[in-house]
């Protein structure tokens, strides 16, 4: 299979969906003149004219207008520049977009996508390094996805654009330049469905986004120690695929949840709480969580590394659920 970058994969998804459906359009800050900070919009202006637009630094307008546009016959895709700025438009997400369909009794669909580049990269410090899916997890009405590879980036973005409901699409900044196999022919990655990246018998690791590959590396290393890890890539973070997770945990009896976001109050809390609720009698150890330490992301490389979750943290958690000395 051919190999393209994550960034190119999202670009293909945009191009295919914009060709397929003239009501799909995209806008965001600084995406037209230079193709997006991560090159993820390159070439679209040439092909799609005013269906790709730059916007002023006005995040409430970006997100709020997406709702208005979605209610009235288009399928907007709005780019947040950095996921960190979702907070600027939080009311639009939490009180307008998430509630519109429900509080008006289902009068309209809300086919919109908010793209949000997230994660730690290059000492970008406290306000440009966050993974903020946890901010949104207690809001009914939003669907949250996070690809982990070029293939899932393309397939999930296409599915998100076609869904008649609001989707927040978190794309990790470190992934953009990474290459991976992506089918030539059209495909969709189902929303609401996790993928088992690596089957295993001893421990389940539930993870998503960039952490998937870190966990895969750990799993490979642990395999040489005879520990057989199963890795579940959630892909859809909310609602997450309980069936796949629970089935896996009922098989392995042990589980670690890993994400880059801060552990306290993160998505791992919901996942761990659900697993122990639904699979308590199958568990041979507590569900452990791995994630960033409970502070903002600091600038200095030494500090950043200490705060961000590392492969070693995952490894240690696996040992612990196996009741091995660390």
């Amino acid at each position, binding site marked *: 299979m051919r190999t393209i970058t994550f960034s190119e994969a999202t670009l293909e998804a945009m191009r295919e969906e914009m060709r397929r459906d*003239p*009501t799909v*359009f995209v806008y965001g800050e600084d995406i037209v003149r230079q193709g997006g900070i991560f090159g993820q919009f390159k070439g679209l202006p040439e092909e799609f004219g*005013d*269906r790709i*637009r730059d*916007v*002023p630094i*006005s*995040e*409430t*307008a970006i*997100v*709020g*207008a*997406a*709702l*208005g*546009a*979605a*209610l*009235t*016959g*288009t399928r*907007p895709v709005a780019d947040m520049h950095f996921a960190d700025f979702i907070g600027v438009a939080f*009311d*639009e997400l939490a*009180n*307008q977009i998430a509630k*519109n*369909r*429900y*509080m*008006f*009794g*289902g*009068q*309209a*669909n*809300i086919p919109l996508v908010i793209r949000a580049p997230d994660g730690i990269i290059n000492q970008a410090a406290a306000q440009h390094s966050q993974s903020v899916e946890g901010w949104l997890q207690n809001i*009914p*009405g939003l*669907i949250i996805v996070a690809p982990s590879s070029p293939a899932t980036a393309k397939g999930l973005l296409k*599915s998100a654009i*076609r*869904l*008649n*409901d609001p989707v927040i699409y978190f794309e990790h900044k470190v992934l953009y330049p990474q290459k991976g196999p992506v089918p030539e022919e059209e495909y*969709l990655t*189902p*929303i*609401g*469905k996790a993928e088992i990246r690596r089957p295993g018998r001893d421990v389940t690791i539930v993870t998503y986004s960039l952490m998937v590959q870190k966990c895969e590396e750990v799993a490979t290393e642990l395999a040489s120690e005879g520990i057989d890890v199963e890795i579940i890539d959630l892909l859809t973070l909310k*609602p997450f695929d309980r069936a796949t997770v629970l089935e896996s945990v009922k098989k392995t009896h042990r589980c670690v949840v890993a994400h880059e976001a801060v552990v306290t109050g993160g998505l791992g809390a919901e996942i761990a709480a659900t697993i122990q609720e639904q699979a308590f009698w199958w568990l041979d150890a507590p569900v452990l969580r791995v994630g960033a330490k409970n502070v903002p992301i600091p600038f200095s490389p030494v500090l950043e590394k200490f705060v961000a979750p590392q492969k070693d943290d995952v490894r240690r958690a696996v040992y612990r659920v196996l009741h091995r000395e660390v």
Partner: protein
Amino acid sequence: MESTQAVFPERYIALPSERKMELLRTMIRIRTFETKVEELFLNKKIPGFVHLYIGEEAIATGVMANLGKEDWITSTHRGHGHAIAKGAQTARMMAELFGRKTGYCKGKGGSMHIADFSVGMLGANGVVGGGFNIAVGAALSAQIRRTNQVAVCFFGDGASNRGTFHEALNLAAIWKLPVLFVNENNQYASTTPVSYGLSAQHVADRAKGYGIEGYTVDGNDVRQVYDAASYLIGRAREGKGPALLECLTYRVKGHYVGDPEKYRTREEVQKMVNERDPIKLFSKVLMEEGTLNDAGLAKLYAEAEEEILAAVAFAESSPYPEPEEALEDLFSFSPKEFPEVIA
């Protein structure tokens, strides 16, 4: 109340008398609806929070007379008048206020979330200033799809201090979106007089900051509202971009039904009721024009009364939703069948 008479093409005057009568009819229907709602709320027939549009009817009426069903509006927490003027059915509105299954939102919304998307009424909003960008988005949709629809955003004087006002007007202006921002300056934001919270003298003064036109009209004179809206909506439809129209009015009732209203005197209110009631003013105009007589006016009131009583009867005889229906309508798919592949 200060009022700057802007000069717009005089289109009201050329309207056929049925259209003029229609304006009055709409105002009276709104008034009758609101008066009944107040009574029902005080009698505990309607739960929740209710904000009445009494005294402000000329604005929704004068603006909406320039829109078709394919055009959109966004409304505020004070949305009944907008809904009626946009063409929503009072029976389904009343049912919604009663929390019944037959209401526009199947009982999920209530007064603060009254909406009828089928006539382009994109919803009242419990968040002050929540509608600006929704209207901008609708106008953007028209521009992207190259239709000649327009969007109108209604908002209060208080709402003009929200950041969303700024971001929406700037974006609408740079893209020349077909949207009209209609400010209902009713002199108060809840307990707070406009003179306290608004740093500009007029909301319309803010237009310059977006390079667009801004006007202030007497919002209790439906003719002025009609003419201004006709001109500005026409321009928007022609691709000439957004404008800001401030309509000076007065909130005759409390902020919500039950408001102790300690922030103003009864005299202030009474004076406005006596001198500036938009329905009285317009009835007088129509009588002077010879379009209306006493019997005609009585008939309008009687018809409106009949309609609203029927609406109440409809609401009262409608069933409540089943409790489990609370789990519906969150997504386009049923909670039980999350679509695995979206085709």
